[in-house]
């Protein structure tokens, strides 16, 4: 079923902070090793904010560089598997070991799974459609899907969307080796200069059905490649990074983020 508004949907720009920097020209990329949050948010905020909040805001700033945003008609949709779990863990560890009097209200304010999106909205003055998706490894791509829907439905004209993950002892205990990173896209209705075009989006219980939903969503199209991202070291960010890597390729390429067990989202780009 097609969306409410027929049109052309584009990825105008992107901001990435990651270990992998093999991304197309036009993606505003910063290697994780060179990332200093102080340059983006200041010293005081760097001390107070969870690392995930720092990464998300910095990538959003990179993504929207040079753009004039209308706050009310722009949105933020971020996908994350673990959110600010490090702050959650640290806050409660302090309460448990030293008592509530020694805990920090500011740290509590950072302690949530959807905080990073709020920090992006606050720093960029984005008031429109706002959501955090926590669908494991599918979350970042699902955030792109949800953003396209929101634009088609006339809620907003532009969305900053994608995936972010940070490091924490909680995450390391589960995943062992893992990485931090963020990839945020600016998606809007076309035409205009862009990194790539979004031809269709969909969700499903598994990659086949998610792709089928995305194909139904798009006009008749031939998929040159279907890339399924279900494992990786950077959680919700991996599939969004893969999407960026596939931009500018030959023909239409479908990228699916798959968490397993019914959480799956696909974006077709060309």
């Amino acid at each position: 079923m097609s969306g409410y508004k027929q049109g052309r949907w584009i990825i105008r720009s992107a901001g990435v902070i990651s270990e992998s920097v093999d991304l197309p020209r036009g993606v505003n990329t910063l290697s994780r090793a060179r990332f200093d949050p102080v340059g983006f948010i200041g010293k005081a905020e760097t001390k107070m904010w969870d690392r995930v909040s720092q990464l998300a805001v910095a990538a959003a700033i990179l993504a929207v560089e040079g753009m004039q945003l209308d706050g009310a008609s722009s949105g933020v949709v971020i996908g994350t598997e673990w959110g600010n779990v490090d702050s959650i863990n640290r806050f409660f560890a302090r309460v448990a070991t030293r008592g509530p009097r020694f805990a920090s209200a500011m740290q509590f304010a950072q302690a949530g799974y959807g905080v990073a999106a709020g920090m992006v909205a606050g720093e960029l003055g984005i008031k429109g459609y706002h959501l955090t998706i926590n669908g494991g490894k599918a979350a970042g791509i699902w955030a792109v899907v949800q953003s396209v829907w929101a634009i088609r439905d006339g809620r907003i004209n532009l969305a900053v969307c994608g995936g972010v993950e940070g490091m924490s002892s909680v995450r390391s205990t589960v995943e062992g080796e893992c990485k931090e990173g963020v990839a945020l896209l600016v998606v809007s209705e076309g035409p205009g200069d862009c990194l790539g075009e979004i031809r269709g989006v969909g969700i499903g219980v598994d990659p086949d059905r998610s792709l089928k939903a995305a194909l139904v969503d798009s006009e008749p199209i031939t998929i040159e490649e279907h890339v399924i991202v279900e494992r990786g070291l950077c959680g919700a960010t991996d599939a969004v990074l893969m999407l960026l890597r596939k931009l500018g390729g030959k023909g239409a390429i479908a990228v699916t983020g798959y968490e397993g067990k019914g959480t799956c989202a696909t974006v077709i780009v060309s």
Partner: protein
Amino acid sequence: MPVRAGPEAVITGIGMITSLGDRDHTWAGVLAGRSGIKEITVFCTDNYRIHRGGELDRRCLPQGLDPTCAMGIYGLQAALADAEIEDVENVSLAVGSNMGAVSQLEEFCRSDSYETAFGCRLQTMTDVLADRTGLGGIRITTSVACSSGAAAVGMALDMIRRGTDVVVAGGSDALTEFKFSGHHLLGSMTGEEIRPFDRDRSGMLLGEGAAFLVIENEERARRRGVRVYAKLSGYGLANDAYHMTAPDPEGSGAALAIEQALADAMVKLGEVDHVNAHGTATRLNDVMETKALLQVFGERALQIPVTAVKSMIGHLLGASAAVEAAVTTLSVFHGIVPPTIGLTIVDPECQVDCVVGSARPVSIRTALSNSFGFGGIDACLVISRVDG
């Protein structure tokens, strides 16, 4: 204005558990203006000034599970039974929660095992709920603070509009020391009664519970011949972009969410007959919410019957929006607005028509359910009467 294509969504099942009891007891309780606030027993409150909250009787819950998961399973199963759905192979699930299985987070501090760490993932909670109830459809989780339940319901509406037949959507959050200590630090809780819109209000109290709505393609529901409570007409999400913990005092983000929801529902302002308020009874929220309603409705905002359910069951954080959506749905279905308790002298800055004393019969064509979350995340659901 977009041209709406795609199926309509209706609410065919409601499952709920709060400090007032199950769905029927909660509904009877809010209509009667009963309070579910009591002394907290699930953790020690000796280190705190506040000792009360909307704690529920956990003996009715599935045992041996994290309490947030247990409450969610209770609500989910009750909703499916209410909607008379037995075959759940293709039923999808959208869950909103503030912290998910927070007992796992608390436990991780004591023993950092793989099992507790894995339980800390928010999606893990959704998987537990879906696996325990056998749901085989799409599943997704969202966390946007106190608006989480509303965001999950909104995502379900998006899914129905794009071809999914049935989505169970809602939220669950248990009362735990983690959340309690944070809100205690922020000074947002009261040592007295919860008094939404009252001149002398002094804050909220936390509660716990879960609510799930079965949201279904309208045509499918009609074919099944199942009772339809109401139509889920639209939703709106926005952000104040103002402050990490305090709402924008002018209510611009809240007003934006309401306007977005009404536009999404294609409902005229004059058709809104009831507002189920966020109504936390904090000094900042209630006046902000009044300003937001005035921005959207003009002077008519002061004539629309309002209720604040948190006065009776407390603030259920991520589950509150879902519980309030359930109560709003029942209000629309039965044509009656529950009272708000604790309100004795209306704040001159909050002159909304808050129903007090006893429940008020109102013919409700369309109702709004507002949720304005911590961190400035604003949500509004539009629930409309189904005629015929």
